[in-house]
């Protein structure tokens, strides 16, 4: 018999709305995740579901999604009682989130952390508690479960088990934390008021926008609120239904409600600030959405734009929902793509806006949907202004093009094509033909620089990785000042990747992105910094021709820098110290800390768990 071509995706069922909300029957959705062979768990190449319950100290039977009985049904049907469905849902949403990052960043994200933790582990029932978090040490997402209140159960049955792993938004949120931590490992260090707020806000943005890409769900909401489809209220309400099972979603999304909520100078709580970032992005999203559906409504109403009374015509609702989903997907990719254009340390909301504008400009200079303009307007309306720019005009917001940096040459020139090959092999689509597929084998691994560098030797491509690291280091050292690095301090190559992106006009954009970081040697003993030193660093974006296009820097103070750069670097260090003191003020535990706890308090504050559970 002739072989049937492989499917590129695997359909899996999930709860699209939180089953514990109970205001009506939970909606389910079928999502397509990237196909990969799975072992029981499920265990794939980058994700590993481990159903260990640290509360009851037991394992639960692991699902085999490649089991024919399950394949035939397109995955297990949603069930609150069956842990195997929980495993499937966690895997499906995590995989979907990961694919969105792969796609937007133009490479296959590496989730391996050393050789022992080669996959990100997902524990759907890790502990008893109203929380869910990413833990860097364990390289895992841990989801809690808890009993609904016995006396005030709300819409739930008293004492009923509530699972955080059954909320799409919580899974996507935690997954985003994990990916962000792999992409930017210093973004958990609260060096300024925006860093943790960014981690939180960005995770919510990904969760919400990803949720909008379920057209059926969007369509139902649009039909329910037929009168105001042009108003963002429909989508805001949709955003607010999601993922309320843990407390942390609530305040993050509250700013969506209030068009007047802006970034106030004294606002230092991570969730409050994160809420403003979410609102700014959504303001931009809604504006694009409105302009996208205006023509559809005009066509459907014979040019008047006035909808007739009665139910919304189903076809119209479908078209609008499809447009909302498409806009959300593009917005999501725009938000993620910016990552490669962020400095390696000490990020601010303003940096993020600049990174989004620059990354999107490089890919789609035309901005035919007006998305960039809408986004800038959203940030302006929410009072988020980048430092050191003269205006909010797009040209001012884009990172300045690197000047005075020589072309990358010598050894790196030989190595780059090899890196490109490996990354291309990792990222390109696998054949659907079964025979070819077998011949292709599995995707090559990419050695990681972080984690434990001793593990590099065990990787088949380590020689490329290692040599590129050495060559980049050499390059950075020789051009330290031009890259705003301090030539007298050690320079670390934190990461580098080749990325492949397709522009809207069909062009292929290939770049090398690398993060170079430095440590302030004086910072380690500064008790005012609470155990986290000051870092500096530069992200470089290099074209295939070896030309450094952008050098996005957060320099450490250094007297050889130009005066204004030096002043900015110094104020950045002062800002970090002042911020630690503000955190101390807000931290109820601070007065009761022992001296050892005081000295390492900033390290303790780096935890996502504390961020989610401490409220």
């Amino acid at each position, binding site marked *: 018999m002739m072989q049937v071509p492989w499917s590129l995706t695997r359909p899996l069922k999930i709860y699209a709305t939180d089953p514990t909300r109970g205001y009506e029957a939970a909606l389910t959705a079928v999502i397509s995740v990237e196909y990969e062979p799975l072992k029981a768990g499920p265990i794939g190449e980058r994700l590993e579901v481990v159903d*260990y319950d640290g509360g009851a100290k037991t394992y639960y039977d692991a699902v085999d999604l490649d089991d024919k009985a399950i394949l035939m049904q397109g995955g297990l049907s949603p069930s609150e*009682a069956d842990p195997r469905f929980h495993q499937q849902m966690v895997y499906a949403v995590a995989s979907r989130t990961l694919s969105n990052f792969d796609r937007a960043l133009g490479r296959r994200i590496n989730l391996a952390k050393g050789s022992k933790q080669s996959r990100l582990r997902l524990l759907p029932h890790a502990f008893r508690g109203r929380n869910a978090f990413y833990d860097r040490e364990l390289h895992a997402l841990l989801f809690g*479960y808890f009993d609904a209140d016995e*006396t005030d159960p709300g819409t739930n049955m008293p004492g009923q088990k509530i699972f955080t792993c059954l909320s799409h938004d919580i899974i996507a949120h935690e997954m985003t934390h994990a990916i962000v931590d792999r992409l930017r490992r210093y973004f958990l260090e609260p060096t300024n008021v925006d860093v943790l707020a960014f981690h939180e806000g960005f995770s919510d943005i990904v969760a919400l926008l990803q949720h909008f890409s379920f057209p059926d769900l969007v369509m139902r909401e649009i039909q329910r609120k037929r009168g105001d489809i042009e108003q963002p209220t429909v989508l805001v309400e949709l955003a607010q239904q999601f993922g309320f099972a843990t407390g942390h979603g609530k305040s993050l999304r509250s700013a969506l409600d209030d068009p007047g909520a802006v970034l106030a100078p004294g606002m230092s709580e991570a969730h409050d600030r994160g809420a403003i970032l979410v609102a700014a992005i959504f303001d931009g999203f809604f504006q694009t959405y409105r302009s996208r559906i205006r023509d559809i409504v005009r066509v459907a109403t014979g040019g008047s734009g006035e909808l007739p009374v009665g139910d919304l015509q189903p076809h119209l609702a479908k078209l609008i929902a499809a447009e909302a989903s498409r806009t959300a997907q593009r917005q999501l990719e725009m938000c993620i793509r910016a990552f490669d254009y962020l400095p390696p340390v000490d990020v601010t909301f303003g940096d993020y806006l600049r990174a989004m504008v620059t990354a999107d400009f490089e890919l789609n200079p035309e901005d035919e949907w007006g998305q960039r303009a809408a986004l800038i307007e959203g940030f302006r309306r929410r009072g988020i202004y980048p430092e050191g720019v003269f205006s909010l005009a797009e040209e001012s917001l884009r990172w300045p093009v690197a000047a005075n940096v020589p072309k990358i040459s010598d050894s790196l020139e030989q190595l780059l094509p090899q890196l490109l090959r490996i990354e291309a092999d990792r990222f390109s689509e696998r054949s659907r033909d079964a025979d070819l597929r077998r011949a292709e084998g599995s995707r090559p691994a990419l050695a990681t620089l972080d984690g434990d560098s001793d593990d590099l030797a065990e990787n088949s491509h380590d020689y490329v990785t290692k040599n590129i690291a050495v060559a980049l280091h050499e390059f950075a050292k020789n051009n330290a000042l031009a890259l705003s690095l301090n030539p007298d301090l050690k320079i670390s190559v934190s990461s580098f990747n080749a990325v492949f992106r397709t522009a809207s006009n069909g062009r292929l954009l290939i770049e090398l992105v690398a993060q170079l970081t430095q440590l302030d040697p004086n910072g380690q003993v500064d008790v005012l910094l609470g155990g986290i030193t000051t870092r500096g660093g530069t992200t470089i974006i290099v074209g295939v021709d070896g030309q450094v296009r952008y050098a996005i820097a957060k320099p450490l103070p250094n007297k050889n820098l130009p005066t204004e750069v030096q002043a900015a670097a110094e104020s950045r260090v002062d800002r970090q110290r002042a911020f630690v003191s503000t955190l101390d003020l807000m931290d109820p535990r601070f007065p*009761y800390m022992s001296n050892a706890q005081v000295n390492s308090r900033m390290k303790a504050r780096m935890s996502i768990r504390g961020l989610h559970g401490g*409220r």
Partner: protein
Amino acid sequence: MIDRLTIRMYDMGFGDCFLLSVWTGARPRHVLFDCGSLSRSKPQVAKVAKDVIAACTTAGGKARIELVVCTHRHKDHVCGFDDPNWANVEVGEVWMPWTEDPSDPDATRIRNRQSAFALALCSTLKPGFNSDDLPLAGAGPQTQKAARLALALNSLTNERAMSVIHRGFQGVAPRRFLPLKDKSAEVRYLDGLPGVRFHVLGPSRNEKVIAAMDPPDGAAYFAGSNLAFCAMNETGACEATWRVTADRYRADNPDITFSEADQKDVDRLADEPDGDFAAAIDNAVNNTSLILAVEVGDQLLLFPGDAQWGSWDAILQQPEIRDLLRRVTVLKVSHHGSHNGTPKSLVETILSENVTAFMSTGSVKQWPNIPRGPLITALSAKTKLARSDKTAPAGFKGHDGLYIEWETPVLAI
């Protein structure tokens, strides 16, 4: 005409008791701020109460206090009222934060949440605890656990003390719950205290401050929290039919990267609490503190209770209150000199150069940062600072280690 005033700071260890007396010639009138301790035994606290009552008793043998202020319900501020002798003291008025108002539904909700949280926390930390336990006062081991329990017990409702404050004392002193609704920085007067103006600055009723009064997730939190978990160890996430042993699981899934060491780490994460709940509830109750500025002639005395960041933040954002605070001449340092009790901007940019500061504090081994070193340095540089745990500095009068007293003439303005 009031011509002078005295302030007595009693040595309560980790606690507060301040007696303000305004004098017209030889006749004093008294205002009492709090009476309690976390680190002193019951007899020690009773001795202070006795001295306060004696100080407020006339030669004719009549004890009268014009105003009793209960800044907030923490044990270290109220437990001294659990004493039968207060029944013989006539009191003009009793002021409390609005959160004590029994007829205000918001206040009741906050109180109930705080009490339920503290109760659940205490039972979790020490099943079968006694609400009169004094883990920091006795000879017991001074461990972190004892300190945490002390902190949790601190937030427990002090039934007997609170009933004296709400319904006790001689006479029928009206109870006021301040600030009144819809009043910001209200100025109040008292018939028994002519010439004294009270500025009621907090606690604000704004949403942020109310949020700062909320324990992490109410009492319901404990039902879902891993803190209360020991009791329910048997119920896991899923029904028993789905359970498999570790050996089986590992044999069936040989490829897992999840090692036995990882499994132990998960156990540890599952067993340790999400946060320091004792500190969280302590902070929540502190933020209910009634904040008063007492104006007598040229003197302006700031008594912020144990106000912490959330409450201060709301106050310092109001320009008219910032202006008022620039005139402060006496500061009762909030929360025993903790970093969170006194905003840096208050000391550095708002307070003037001529301030006398009182810090009621007692060192607790487990809390080496109360009082906070840098705050003491900043206050010492800018103010005349007296500490209850040190001998009286020049200009203050010590009294047998029982209290430190300070006197200043009052000039009419």
